[in-house]
């Protein structure tokens, strides 16, 4: 199996109040081609920073991130990002938002662009809102629009920062299955941040548990469940066991920290 994304001793420090604050501390992590890796951890532990370094939006202050063996210097359309804050262009309709990335690709005709955008708009269930402005959409609908926009450019890597956080439980489960279906059809590599332990286990080949202060990897828990995953997996004893392990890793640590302070 080839490595798609490789963090090598990757650190990131921010200047906060004149002092260096270590948001990510020497992370080593290899994500294989076509693997789904989910990242969980308490808020503020550096999950978004880690993802942004892979996206090329934040430069590591130590170490390096490699994608296909090449150090990441800047963002690129082969690495799709879904932001925690949706980041829709408020002056564009849903359709124009979804088409945005496609307009930047050479050799995509207008009709083809339309067709592809429509496909992903339908996919996320926004058919009736294709010509609406973001301000008229609910949080969940905005998130779905952001997902369609990222999917539309067909990136080989998807970097997703709590993408389903604003969705209701049912839509969330639908989007998870949708994501896995698209993943197995198009063979993408996915790095997925979530605070939902069930979601982390359901999607992942491996779950990365991070700890805070400084942000680091605490444990990597493999999920030995076969794909395609179904609702039956969620109810299996194996699932429950892994889920409990992850839960423990995240919250045991949180409790420890509470005790320490």
């Amino acid at each position, binding site marked *: 199996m080839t490595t798609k994304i490789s963090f090598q001793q990757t650190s990131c420090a921010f200047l906060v109040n004149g002092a260096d604050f270590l948001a990510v501390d020497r992370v080593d992590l290899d994500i294989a081609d076509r693997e789904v890796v989910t990242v969980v951890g308490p808020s503020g532990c550096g999950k978004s920073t880690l993802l942004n370094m892979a*996206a*090329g*939006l934040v430069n590591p202050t130590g170490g390096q991130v490699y994608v296909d063996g090449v150090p990441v210097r*800047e*963002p*690129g*359309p082969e*690495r*799709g*990002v879904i*932001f925690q*804050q949706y*980041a*829709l*262009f*408020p*002056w*564009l309709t849903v359709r124009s938002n979804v088409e*945005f*990335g496609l307009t*930047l*690709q050479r050799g995509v005709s207008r009709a083809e662009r339309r067709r592809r955008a429509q496909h992903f708009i339908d996919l996320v269930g926004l058919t009736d809102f294709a010509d609406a*402005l*973001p*301000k008229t959409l609910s949080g969940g609908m905005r998130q779905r629009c952001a997902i369609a*926009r990222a999917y539309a*450019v067909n990136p080989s890597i998807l970097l997703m920062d709590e993408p389903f956080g604003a969705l209701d439980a049912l839509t969330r489960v639908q989007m998870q299955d949708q994501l896995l279906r698209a993943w197995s059809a198009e063979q993408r590599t996915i790095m997925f941040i979530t605070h939902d332990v069930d979601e982390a286990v359901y999607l992942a080949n491996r779950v990365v548990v991070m700890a805070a202060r400084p942000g680091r990897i605490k444990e990597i828990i493999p999920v030995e469940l076969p794909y395609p995953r179904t609702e039956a997996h969620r109810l299996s004893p194996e699932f429950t066991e892994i889920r409990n392990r992850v839960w423990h890793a995240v919250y045991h640590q949180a409790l420890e920290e509470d005790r320490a302070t």
Partner: protein
Amino acid sequence: MTSTIPVRGAPPGATAPPGRSRAGRRPNRTSLRMLGLNAVAVAIGLAVWAGLARAGVEGLPGPLAVADRGWDLIESGTLLEDTAASLRRVFIGFLLGSLLAVPVGFLMGWYVTARGLIEPYVQFFRTIPPLAIIPLAIVLLGIGETPKIFVITLAAFLSSVISTFQGVVSVDKTLINAARVLGAGDGVTFRRVVVPASSPFILVGMRIGLGSAWATLVAAELIAAQQGVGYRMQQAQLYYDLPTIFVGLITIGVLGLIMDRILLLVERRLTRWQERR
């Protein structure tokens, strides 16, 4: 008369003043009531004015006398010519000023170097009222159209440039990142994200710019002109011709209001996507 008084220079978006709600677009009960009150206020104002004139305040002409003079000036074509001359100056100055302010404001917002080089001048000239430049402009540029248009351009430019700059600086970083990860380079990000995202600021700046262009215009004409509303009032002053001065004042007010309203409509149209709370 319209129902609301626009707040000059109010920042767009988050703190949209109440006057910019939808009341202006769809007449509901409150806005009809406001319209009624506005009409009453105007009527009372006219009555007080007429009363004062009749009571014999030294030299004050009544509304009818002013209306009469207004009609004369319209019939003779003087008012139209003066208005045309004034509007021409203000439009040229306003257009030049805004056209210059937008790229300069963008440069300042986008490149730290440009900001460092330009900002001291903008801040310095902003503290000088454009009118104070008039003597210098007349000495350097003569008494033709050039100094007037120059001063108006300067006034419009200084008002818009800061606003544009602030708009660029306050563009949400995640929107820029969103464009970049979709494959947009600097140019595309600038054109398709920074420009639209800062357009509410630019439009507010343009409205402020138009306001100061208009204010500066009249003063510039008071000092040196052969035609224009300000010039007409200056002439009237020599002959103690108060009705003409009043006609001039009302013309200036009405034209200023109309121009502001047009820009407000344009602004509303172009920034309809904004979330207003």
